[in-house]
């Protein structure tokens, strides 16, 4: 019935309407932006990221990702403490375009309110539905 999405939406991740994903393994969460966000920005050339140890709150901005033309805020899918940032992105920001869910991860954090906040995040199917609603009415 529905066409396959042109954007990758892997299973096993949580998603937000701001087009971030979170992969929770054990007590940590890796965070990045989705294939949709990466394709919309296209040439990612620069990021501003928080220092490790920084506290972030769910849905508030923790940095920016920039293309040649545009700046996008990065919103935390979960509250917690930043435990590491992807150093590869300093010299190779295009990793996000090439591999938004793996090599292009952006920060890792230790979630502080995982159980409550998980409930507010989107499942892969819910995020796909959300993407369809955005693209509805677009010509391409």
């Amino acid at each position: 019935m529905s066409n396959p999405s042109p954007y990758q939406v892997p299973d096993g991740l949580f998603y937000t309407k701001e087009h971030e994903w979170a992969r929770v393994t054990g007590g940590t969460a890796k965070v990045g932006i989705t294939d949709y966000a990466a394709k919309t920005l296209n040439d990612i050339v620069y990021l501003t990221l928080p220092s490790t140890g920084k506290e972030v709150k769910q849905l508030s901005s923790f940095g920016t990702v920039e293309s040649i033309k545009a700046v996008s805020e990065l919103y935390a899918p979960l509250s917690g403490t930043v435990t590491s940032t992807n150093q590869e992105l300093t010299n190779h920001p295009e990793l996000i375009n090439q591999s938004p869910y793996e090599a292009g991860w952006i920060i890792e954090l230790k979630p502080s309110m995982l159980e409550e906040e998980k409930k507010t995040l989107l499942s892969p199917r819910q995020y796909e539905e959300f993407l369809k609603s955005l693209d509805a009415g677009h010509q391409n």
Partner: protein
Amino acid sequence: MTTTGKSRSTPLYEFHRTHGKMVEFAGYEMPIWYTSTMEEHMAVRNHAGIFDVSHMGRVDVTGPDAARFIENLFPTGIGKQPIGKSVYTLLLNESAGIVDDLIVLKVDEGKYLLVVNAASKEKDLRHMERIGSGLNFKIDDITEATTMIAVQGPSAVEALQPLTPLPLAEMKRFTHAFSTVKGIRAVVTRTGYTGEDGFEIIVHDAASGAIAVWEALLKGATPCALGSRDSLRLEAGLPLYGSDMDEATNPLEADLGWVISKDKKSYVGSQRLASLMQQGPARIRRGIIMDERIPRRDFKVTDKAGEEIGVVTSGTFSPVLKRGIAMGYVKTPSPQLGETVEVVVRDAPSNGKIAKLPFYDDSLYGWKRKPHQQ
């Protein structure tokens, strides 16, 4: 007129729709990239790229009073230029404010072809009709009947030569010639908006002939869209009307004083310009290259002491320099070339320097580059 609210499209729309990411620009459905702005930008710097610039306005000005009208309309001396010249100039209002920037092709004495910005065309036509009121001349808008394609880059001659009998390598910069491209009547002008060598072709066809020209050019050039058009012109230090200048900007502030004729005394805006030249501009357009961070439009510029001295009007990431670059205005006396300034990026001042324009080393990039660097 977009009375239905629907965007217009150029003759090359099908190609753009099939290959590009579409956006609305100046009332037209246009591509912002085909593959990526970065790739398209570097294709122009390293080889050749083609741009559909059909959205730009093209108007013929002819008639017994056309020469007199044109001479009074612009601050640049057009009358003394030879036939075949392509002249970059400014349309000014009586307060010496910039109404548009454009190229005037002097086709013949009393015959001119103007190429203006898409978003300004209607405004320019009304301005011209008002200034020329009472004079005997005709303005023909040939935008819809023609297609305009820019071929830009160090390999532009090679990319275009197979399509035209014109001896392209012999054409001087800022001249034009009438000929054919793919057998279709065309004007070819050795001008562009990238800083590289190149040509802009106006083909007298708005249908299958235009598509044939575009497809033939694809054999020797990369298709490039609006994103790279902007990053290229900014890297080359070329101002964009509507961003880097508007009707509240005069040519001296815009650092375009060189377009003002030294001998012509009377033309639209000349009186105001004369007093501005006496006083000197209160602010001036300058380039800024950042150490880190990317400057964006409306970011404040401060001096080393943190005092506000100006604002960014265009900013981007330079693919060649791999740093943030900006064009903006600083109050006079301006900081010197190489002097440190700060651009406030998200509430934090970030270091940069006043930079020469174009931003790149013009022995390596641009139309002045030393031939065939290996």
